């Protein structure tokens, strides 16, 4: 019965996205899915001390600007997918598209995303509608996220 109630709680709760595995080529998939549309690509990890603050800001952004397209990519491992989903959900990002690194060599995936990204987290890329991107390391202040949303999202 306990599990039955649990299940009900899960079903009635916010549906959360199925985490996809980020492998070589995934960035192209993410871009192709959003041709002509601006979005925020946010890289994070459950082992990063500054990432909860980043998730909190992104969650707040999603709440205030539901039209903002955020893609979360965790640099952890596929077996952590479910826990990562829960973490994201706890910051109000349950409906956000989520990916998790799925390669024994994270450096390979970093290389594909940005050769000049050294692995520091959180790492955020703002893509405009033409998919020109701007990369930032470190927690992005909510005001910065909101001003980007105001500029790029109708």
């Amino acid at each position, binding site marked *: 019965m306990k*599990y*039955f109630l*649990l*299940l*009900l*709680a*899960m*079903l009635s*709760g916010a549906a959360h996205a199925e985490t996809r595995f980020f492998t070589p080529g995934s960035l192209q998939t993410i871009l192709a899915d959003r041709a002509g549309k601006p979005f925020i690509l946010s890289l994070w990890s*459950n*082992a*990063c*001390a*500054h*990432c*909860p*603050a980043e998730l909190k800001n992104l969650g707040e952004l999603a709440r205030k600007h539901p039209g903002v397209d955020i893609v979360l990519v965790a640099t*952890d*491992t596929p*077996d*952590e997918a*479910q*826990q*990562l989903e*829960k*973490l994201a*959900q*706890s*910051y109000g990002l349950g409906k956000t598209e989520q990916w998790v690194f799925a390669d*024994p*060599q994270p*450096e*390979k995936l*970093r*290389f594909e995303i940005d*050769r*000049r990204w*050294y*692995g*520091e*987290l*959180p*790492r955020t890329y703002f893509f405009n509608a033409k998919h020109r991107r701007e990369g930032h*390391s*470190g*927690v992005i202040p909510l005001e910065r996220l909101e001003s980007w949303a105001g500029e790029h999202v109708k």
Partner: protein
Amino acid sequence: MVRQLTSLAIACLISGAAVAHDHAAHQAPKRDYAKVWLENQEKAPRLAVAASFDPAGRLWRVQTVGKHLKLSSSDDGGAHFSAPLTVNREPELISSDGEARPQIAIVGQRIYLSWTQALPQPFAGHIRFAVSQDGGHSFSDPITVNDDTRPITHRFNAMLADQQGVTLSWIDKRDGADRAEYRGAAIYTARSTDGGRSFEANRKLEDHSCECCRIGMASDRDGTPVILWRQIFGRNIRDFALARLGEPLRRVSEDDWKIDACPHHGGAIAIDVEGTRHIVWFTGAEKSPGPHYRRIDGQQMSSPMPFGNLDAQAGHPAVAVSGNEVTLVWREFDGSANRIMSMRSTNRGTDWSAPSILASTRGAADYPQLIRGQGGLWLIWNTAEDGFKAMRVGT
């Protein structure tokens, strides 16, 4: 409907514990973060090893297997290793990935080991230590060296030992545990002068270190430990500081890397017979990102020399010095292979050779380390597909 839900519930039961865990997550996000952290520690890849030669030229290697630290030795320069000895009889989680690694130091018949025990709480750990007084045949029961034992950050242990004693340094959040406004963590140290049987009280070297980069240590000419770490200057400039044990810090990089992030990318230090410090470090600052080298002679600091291929993730450098010869090694990834690169100076870091490739592997890999033994300089590098490498690379 109810029946369908029930069968769904049973299906979920089969997938078992995950559902029960998830429930906790709904109610308490913070606890869930803790659970993820703990499980991560249990499963993390264990590529990060440490190695040291003893005075007889035998190579000792320590690595984490499951919840145990294992020590083994090699009489043929790392080609073959003995059956491993289990250091900690009681299992515990041991941080050994990325820049967190166990440490080994050998002085005569004494083998000192230190490591960070990962705790269930996020980013929390204890600094652990064990010593063998009999050349690695047996070890003391591990002790916790940090005298603040709350489940908070005491991590990234570094260790330095000589005939006078053994010094540990680590990143410690005790001063910020109850103060949200406290910037970063602190560097704490502890010293033993009785061969590792006991430690003096913990001492704070400096407030406001960065939270998750390895610490570099080397002996000054008089034996005093010199410590290099990433410090938070101002509100959030994460550049490097250097201090002799018990003395004030000196800022040794002016990159002005302003960042609220975890670089997971520290520095290393070697000191020559004249007391000159040779340091390498990493910065992501836009004006000159990547690894850098600098020589510090008293008050004189050479201009930072960037090295490594920025388009190949050059990073995690090590440095060694012998006489006038300075050796740098670092890791690069070219899209398909991890490789260890090297540059050498024969005039104390003034002029440098072109970079050369010392080793490469197509799989996952540890960061490179430089150690001395058998009258030479050795590269130590652990790889997932090509095993453990010990290569003599200089004098």
